[in-house]
């Protein structure tokens, strides 16, 4: 089975602190990591490979330092990777990103299964995976929490949807986006890290992909960010301190009063 896992490098938000004055995120000195939700796609791919054999290639679009994320994925157990990197790809929205990845996947010769994370923790759109499926004219299964290859050669996938699970079946080739429930991602092994160092990772630009220059990067993006602002995320609420057991009743009553006042109760 040939598996491709598109990944994204994102800022490591767990190390980020909130500025108590402005109420915004302090981002200086923040490291870049593989999008945490992509790790579940990588893990799913490795498990399928362990069970059914095959190869796993990671693909990413981003600046040159994205190489680090690709090597990390290889260290976890992927076989190879390719980086789509060029200034011309910069400023891409989800449409232009999906288009660029489409060309990359085609140049790789396609795949039986493309596994994506549900969304990236920075942009938080979840649109690139479905867009990629659409442009490659592949069937799409999103929010997959459980995946197996049935005896029939078809995939059985469990989608986590509002209020329940949807079981669907689909034959390869297909693109799926997976959610955290699918399994705990493994850590890179020492052998994997060494292998990742030695793996040659090609870098493809627009010419390698024969990209239409009007469809990549900012130029190719139907949407434009026109304004960014940092909202004040803190709220100035009342704080009640329970100093002794006798205060508990009062605290509970203040919750009741609050709920009544806001018409929740």
């Amino acid at each position, binding site marked *: 089975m040939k598996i491709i896992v598109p990944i994204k490098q994102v800022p490591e*938000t*767990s190390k980020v*602190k*909130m500025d108590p004055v402005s109420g915004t995120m302090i981002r200086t000195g923040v490291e870049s990591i593989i999008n945490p939700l992509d790790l579940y796609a990588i893990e799913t791919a490795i498990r399928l490979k362990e069970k059914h054999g095959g190869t796993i290639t990671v693909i990413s679009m981003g600046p040159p330092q994205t190489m680090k994320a690709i090597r990390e994925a290889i260290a976890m157990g992927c076989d190879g990777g390719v980086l789509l990197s060029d200034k011309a790809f910069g400023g891409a929205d*989800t*449409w232009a990103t*999906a288009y660029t990845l489409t060309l990359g996947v085609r140049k790789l010769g396609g795949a039986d299964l493309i596994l994506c994370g549900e969304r990236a923790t*920075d*942009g*938080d*759109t*979840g*649109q*690139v995976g*479905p*867009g*990629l*499926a*659409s442009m490659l004219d592949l*069937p*799409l299964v*999103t*929010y997959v929490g459980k995946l197996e290859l049935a005896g029939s050669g078809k995939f059985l996938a469990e989608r*986590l*949807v*509002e*209020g*329940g*699970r*949807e*079981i*669907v*079946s*689909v034959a390869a080739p*297909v693109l799926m986006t997976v*959610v*955290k*429930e699918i399994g705990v991602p493994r850590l890179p092994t020492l052998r994997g890290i060494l292998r990742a160092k030695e793996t040659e990772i090609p870098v493809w630009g627009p010419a390698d992909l024969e990209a239409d220059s009007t469809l990549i990067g900012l130029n190719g993006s*139907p*949407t*434009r960010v026109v*304004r960014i*602002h*940092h*909202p004040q*995320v803190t*709220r100035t*609420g*009342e704080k009640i*301190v*329970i100093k002794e057991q006798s205060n508990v009743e009062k*605290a509970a*009553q*203040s919750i*009741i009063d*609050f*709920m009544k006042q*806001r018409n*929740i*109760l």
Partner: protein
Amino acid sequence: MKTVNNQHEIEWKDVWTLAEQKGERLHPVSFELLGRGRSLADARGSRLCTVIIGSGVNREDLSELIERGADVVYLVDDPRLANFLVEPYAKILGLLIESYHPEIMIAAATTTGRTVMPYLSAKIRAGLTADCTGLEIEPETGLLLQTRPAIGGNILATIKTPNARPQMATVRPKSTRIPERQPGRAGEIKRIELTEDIFASRVAFERYVPDAEGASSIEEADIVIAGGAGVKTAEGFDPINQLAECLRGAVGASRPCVDHGWQPYAHQVGLSGKTVSPRLYMACGISGAIQHLAGIQTAESIIAINTDPNASIFQLADLGIVGNMFDVLPELIEKIKAIQSSGNR
């Protein structure tokens, strides 16, 4: 790649919303979208149209769509459309867009909306903005201004789609109130007939397994009672479950609880879980890691109960109780039950 865009000779008009069927009835978010859509359509001086794709759509729901603001309802009703399948849904919407040229199309940021909208927009080269919390018309240009949180809600980005049409966006459920019903409001229902090839889908729906009875999903609940590391055990969720039950709310959890197996992943709130916008979010024993706060910023009200007076959750709380949830919750449950049984508000 087929493209319906760069066609300036076509007049793109009207605002469309995508209604969603859930079981036999429409999902409430279908009506929420009408509130958004109505103000956009009014600002553009155009019509508000709603598309429903489903099976056996309830007549009463159709008139409710009109009475809550839709001028036209495009009804696509077929037994083969009873369950969501992205390929036929996207094909149908693509055909409708080609025939009627809406300038704006909004859908809910549900698992359905977040699947079909990007699949569709990729095909027709339309711009799509995910999970918007604000939508308005820019007076000078008539363009749709789409505002959405990014990087865990730490920035708000406003996005425009200058040329591609329709301007597409998904909207966070619960981010708008359902507009008032105006009995007798006039509107048109257009039944759309389809050809056989539309129903082809490479993905086959097998079955739906609902979550345990009584459990409502955290994205849809008006009230979410959530537990964090301070809950300490799976049994620690008992008072949280009880409170959620008596308020008809849902149970949420921070990441450590899910990692410890105290709650299933579907209940995880935060950057690697769900983003919720309930009317009330009650955080019990949650310290408030930035990833968790990212998932609750758009909640209307937040109450936090935590023993640590310096917990960051208090920065985001409208009401903070510094104390032990295991003391406060039983007391609170008792009080609420007393109010409910006495029948007064």
